[in-house]
């Protein structure tokens, strides 16, 4: 399989990947290395993992990182309630200590969290570690261990080794600098906002019902809007929302009615100061330029 065929497969599942991203994904698959994706919010970092799992016809296991995430939520935890019930019923049956202990510390009583689940599948799943920059640095170190050895030690059970190597995709919004150790172990791609042609292809793939003329206008408008000095630059998801909103209102041309255009901007501009900055006049001007 070449990277071009991967790119085609992704396009078939309506994800238009740039050449850079396709090559990096291809390498991640063939070299079995984790892939670290960075980029602004809303450029499709999370979506790529979902689409990849579709093309590979495998499961997607997602670990959403947040501050305070620890091993018991990311790797494994004992099922205490069940253990307690078992102890109680064993006591009534007159079962003795050692055998009960063996039973309640077996795999049946282990709750698999995403990382452990990912390495114990039959078929390599796609493991998406989303927004790794939100997790604490200690967790990053723990993650490194799992990603390099593909094994998890449970003190009561021993070491669980991987039955498969998952396809690991890490995403980061760059709110914190990641450690060099993590970066070294991963392949890296910075996902940019797409250029005009790519974004048009994305719109065609996701909303095929949008007509050619309007599609051109939408993309032109959004691309121009990204050049403005905004607090939150609209991403691809916002562009698709914008297109859907225009379709819902039955608009055929952006320049027709400034008031309606202004009302649909709520899908693109997500802070108060941005909305104040792009007034109806400004929006009309941008739409005029884009057309």
């Amino acid at each position, binding site marked *: 399989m070449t990277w071009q065929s991967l790119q085609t497969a992704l396009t078939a599942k309506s994800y238009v990947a740039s050449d850079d991203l396709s090559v990096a994904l291809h390498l991640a698959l063939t070299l079995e*290395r984790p892939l670290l994706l960075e980029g602004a919010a809303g450029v499709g970092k999370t979506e790529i993992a979902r689409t990849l799992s579709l093309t590979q016809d495998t499961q997607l296991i997602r670990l959403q990182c947040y501050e305070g995430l620890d091993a018991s939520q990311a790797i494994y935890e004992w099922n205490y309630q069940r253990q307690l019930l078992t102890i109680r019923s064993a006591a009534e049956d007159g079962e003795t200590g050692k055998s009960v202990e063996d039973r309640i510390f077996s795999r049946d009583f282990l709750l698999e969290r995403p990382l452990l689940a990912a390495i114990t599948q039959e078929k390599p799943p796609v493991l998406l570690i989303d927004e790794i920059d939100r997790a604490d640095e200690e967790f990053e170190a723990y993650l490194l261990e799992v990603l390099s050895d593909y094994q998890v030690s449970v003190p009561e059970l021993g070491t669980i080794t991987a039955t498969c190597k998952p396809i690991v995709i890490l995403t980061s919004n760059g709110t914190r600098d990641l450690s060099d150790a993590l970066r070294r172990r991963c392949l890296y*791609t910075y996902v940019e906002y797409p250029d005009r042609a790519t974004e048009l292809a994305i719109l065609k793939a996701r909303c095929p019902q949008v007509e050619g003329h309007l599609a051109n206008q939408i993309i032109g408008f959004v691309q121009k809007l990204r050049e403005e000095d905004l607090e939150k630059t609209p991403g691809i998801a916002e562009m698709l929302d914008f297109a859907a909103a225009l379709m819902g209102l039955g608009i055929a041309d952006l320049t027709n009615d400034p008031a309606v255009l202004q009302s649909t901007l709520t899908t693109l501009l997500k802070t108060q100061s941005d909305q104040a900055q792009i007034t109806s006049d400004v929006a009309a001007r941008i739409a005029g330029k884009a057309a």
Partner: protein
Amino acid sequence: MTRVTRFADRDPGPAARVVGFVAHLRDNGLRLGVAEADLSLTALTQVNAAAPDECRRVLRAICTGCKEEAERFDALFDSYWMDAGRVKQRIVPKPQATLSKSVHSSRDGSGEDAGSSGTSTTPDTEVGEADSDGTGKLVATEQRNLSRRDLRDLVRSDEIAEAEAIARRMGAALRDKRSRRRIAARKGDRLHFRKTIRRSLSTGGEPLRLLHKRRPDRVRRIVALCDVSGSMSVYAQVFLAFLAGLMRADKNADAYLFHTRLVRITEALRDKDMMRAIGRMSLMADGFGGGSKIGPSLQRFADTYAKRFVDGRSVVLILSDGCDTEPPDQLGAALTKLKKRSCKIIWLNPLKGWRDYAPVAGGMAAALPHLDLFKAANRLDDLAALETELGAL
């Protein structure tokens, strides 16, 4: 299409070229090891290695680790593979110098001086000082100072040691802010109820062992921005020593210089050799002692680096006199933006130590409402005296 570099006939093959390329990247500051060279070779077998664009993408995915590196990569790739007119790296392995043990020489086998591998910058302070008009005015100037000045002449190593001690104390005062959230700990002030109950299961529901939790100390990150424009050159010595000391004392700290542009000097200052670190910094601080554009520099900081390095646990330390050539509202806007990242902003102004000083300079007046602390500092002692105030923030 651009020309492809023609390698010499005695070139031992593609493997050596790739290794040479990795060495070329390493020389240009990318941190790469043997593993990356190995991985690059393996990866190139997975694609059509004859197509330059594919190689570029493959090597970029492997050899870069962050956005800045990815941006620089293209130029480095072109210079090595596309014959972009740079000095070509030697890719033929150098024959081992076969010197007998009894011969001691400072020159290596090829006759080059072994000590001359580092590039040295010649101090040209005389030129730099001759440029000043000698009236001693402290005003912001418009023009960029194009003369390069070696900062090593300004900073002495014993001063850095002193500054390091001060920076360490300041860091300690600033750094440890207690978190509101409690986490499990061996010695804590409260019972960790959930863990205690769960642990009690193993003893049949009797909580024999009590587990505790406490509020952990969260590290606060110090981000220092130092103005090195002409009007600040008298104080540069103190502040640069302070920055160098700070970087050595606190591995989380982050440092920037600005005059008409903003430069990140964190990496340069992390160099183990203290004077070499200052040397690297002076190479980056091109335009040192020129005009000051505080507003645009801070704006750029707020737009780029701050998004990555500044959060609610950061303390932004601005070392500047506030003499800005740009309109003051830009400075105000930049600080507003910075403040939205819920960091603390401290402005240390050397002029404030003067008698009868009032922050009437447009820039300073615009900045004042956004500051958490506005203090004087023009000697290392002044910085040391700040310790208690910073602790109270």
